[in-house]
């Protein structure tokens, strides 16, 4: 079972995501944003970074990349689609997830470990975790403040505390089907105790378990 990790110009977490997923036994391939065929893949990850420099609005230009038609197809077919950080922003811009991400309340970039709580484990990201489970992984964003005026988002991960002003302290949000998930903190930065935490593993394992042959 294969996972595509999409690389937009300006993406920078693609190698980290690929490394983390492979270290958990996943089969991963990097895919350039001009790719128009993801038919050989069972799931897709949009990793963090600054696609198109985050110019105009974060994620706004990336959502028109050729590869996004395939991401939309996979989302519609119920295949796992995970957006991390900038990938979350792209999924919101593309309308695959509700809401949008705006600047952090304090108008500063935040890079540090944050504590999260799993509040819904019926999603491709949280499927291997217990409800109420505490997870400590790094946050790394300037526009991590999720707003959802329509109040339609399904929150799967919540911050303990309020680092950035996000509505309902949401850190991870799913679509109704639970197969499209956006998460602001970085699970791939939490797979190695030497770097401070292994808590991200249960999330990425959940993603890998949710892959079913296409």
């Amino acid at each position, binding site marked *: 079972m294969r996972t595509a990790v999409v690389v937009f110009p300006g993406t920078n977490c693609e190698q980290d995501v690929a490394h983390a997923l492979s270290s958990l036994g996943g089969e991963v391939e990097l895919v350039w944003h001009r790719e128009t065929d993801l038919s050989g893949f069972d799931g897709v990850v949009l990793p963090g970074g600054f696609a198109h420099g985050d110019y105009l609005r974060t994620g706004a230009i990336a959502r028109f990349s050729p590869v996004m038609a395939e991401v939309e197809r996979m989302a519609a077919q119920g295949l796992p689609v995970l957006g991390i950080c900038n990938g979350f922003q792209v999924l919101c811009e593309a309308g695959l997830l509700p809401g949008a991400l705006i600047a952090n309340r304090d108008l500063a970039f935040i890079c540090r470990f944050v504590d999260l709580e799993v509040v819904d484990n019926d999603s491709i990201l949280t499927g291997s975790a217990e409800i109420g489970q505490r997870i400590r992984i790094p946050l*790394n964003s300037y526009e991590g403040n999720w707003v959802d005026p329509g109040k339609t988002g399904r929150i799967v991960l919540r911050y303990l505390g309020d680092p950035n002003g996000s509505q309902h302290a949401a850190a991870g949000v799913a679509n109704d089907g639970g197969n499209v998930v956006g998460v602001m903190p970085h699970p791939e930065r939490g797979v190695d105790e030497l770097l401070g935490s292994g808590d991200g593993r249960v999330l990425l394992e959940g993603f890998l378990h949710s892959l079913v042959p296409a």
Partner: protein
Amino acid sequence: MTDEEHESVLGLLGRDPRPAELAMYSVMWSEHCSYKSSRAHLRRFPTEAPWVVVGPGENAGVVDLGDGWLAALRIESHNHPSFVEPYQGAATGVGGILRDVFTMGARPIALWDQIRFGPLEDPKNRYLFNGVVSGIAGYGNAVGVPTVGGEIEFDPCYSGNPLVNVMCLGILRREQLVLGTAGSPGTVAVLLGRATGRDGIGGASVLASASFDDESQEKRPSVQVGDPFEEKKLIEACLELYDRGLVAGVQDLGAAGLSCATSEPAGRAGVGLDVDLDSVHVRETGMTAPELLMSESQERMMAFVPTDLVDEVLAIATKWEIDSAVVGTVRVGGTLTVRHQGEIVAEVPAASLADDAPIYDRPMRRPDWLDGLWATPVRILEGDAADILLRLLDDPALGSTAWVHEQYDHMLFLNTVVGPGSDGALIRVRGTDKGLAVSTDGNGRLCQLDPRDGSSRLVYEAALNVAVTGARPLAVVDNLNFGNPEKPEVMWQFKESVEGISAACEMLGIPVVGGNVSFYNETDGIDIHPTPVVGLLGLADPMPGTPPRLSRAEEGMEIWEIGPEANGNLSGTAAQRVIHDELTGRPTPPDPDAAEKVVALAADLAHRVPVLHDISDGGLAVAIAEVCIASQIGANVAETDNGRLFSEDPHRLIAVLEPHTVELPEGLSRKVGTIRGDSLVLGSSDPIDVRRLIETFEGAIPRRMAG
């Protein structure tokens, strides 16, 4: 340009220079680009060692890490641009240092920033500090290179002249090494990246080569705007060019722009170059030849490509969505010929722009005031040790740097084993057992009191900082931030500092592989303290499986001080500054033998001891407090003498360990306390609750930035 410099251009060319030629010589012969005041002194640096692959003279130094791996490193200042526009000045400083490193074929893997400002009580300094930190964050985070460490200092001498230095480390496989050479006749020059505009005409070169006064405000239109997105694409494109072996050489476009990126590679290769300015992709119309040659538009690189590979290079540029243009052809001979709108606008010996720049042997004089400072007694530190400690922890230069480093992505690439907030940073090299440790150290006040010994101490301190992560020192880069070199006192400080750095490097057996000089750091006639900054790279091979961390102290562990015993000298220390607001006396000189022993011992202990922490700003008391804060636990310390608690005498560190687990050398170590409870007790002073330590420490910068 001075009249004499103008004369020597005349002599070189045997005729009156054309306007474009004059433009090229004036930027290339600026202080910033030509090192005309410093070059004679920089020859003093030891630059050789068996592991040096590329020493000073190229865009970055390169050293051998073994097993086919190389590291490239370089440090650079962006002081004056950051004063004019803090966000963009700092951002373009980051962009520039990255280009210096990926020009060598290396992938940049980490950045460090060394920043210095006037006191935060002044809103102007808060504005500069905030702008610089946002600029480094804005560029570094978006370009996708983690900023894993640095330093912060505050002193009134930087109020009119903040210092912004940035250092970059890259790694590469040996076969990927690329040099800044134009190759051989037939090679063509391909300009990659952003379109050229009028921004930054003579920006870095001119701005960095003169002092600040009211007129500097008029230099504002030359501000450059960085585009980290473009640089990210440029990095990936260049690394793919190297991977596929498509280039003969590469040169980044930094200060002096096209003038530098054409003349230097041609000069180094001993060839000539025909350049056609009409091919340069521009973002503004009507640019003149001098403007095109002097523009410092950011995010540009010049690749020298064998003719038959040009199409492949252009295709890679298209793939990464960057612009490119063939702008020149390498010729036999040594002439740089520049054409614009069908006419020859410059025809000069390529090498002369770099090699024939004037060298000044500027007069030097030991400042008269120095003996007076040395003779002024250092006031005794009276009062309760707990109170003194809390005042030190509340100082923005000693308190937590989280306000700064949490704005930087310091974790990207999953290699940051020890990140900001400790001593040296430790970066693992994946696929090997190696770890790369870097520490950057400067101390303007110490060097004001003693530029030679102070500078030596910076090298020893940096070496100890990397040693506590398990690394042995490998190489040094330096950034020499000084005042106006036309003043004999400043030149003397400069020479002394170079001597001090050189002596310490020789003692440790490590080379200087690159650096940068920033002169004219004065405002309205007042020079900054001499502020050399040392960036030291160490190699841990193998890297400790569980490296020491400040957070690993536990109840019942013993605290040992290692190194020569402090004699209580407080000259130049943080305590003297914070408590007495004075700068007097003569700091303790370094002890090279002790330094070497302690560095080797620390690198060894790092494999066996849970906490190792070097004793520097704030002395023993602050070092122990930092362990208590990170481990959220208390300690009892027997020392009652304020002098010995707060002295910053060199070559000392603390080790925290379970009793009887590790043998420490007698004479060079002594037990000073025990980890215990939830408060810190210094001698007979009142216990300080750990929560109070943490609040004070963490609030030092945020409290001031809140205004």
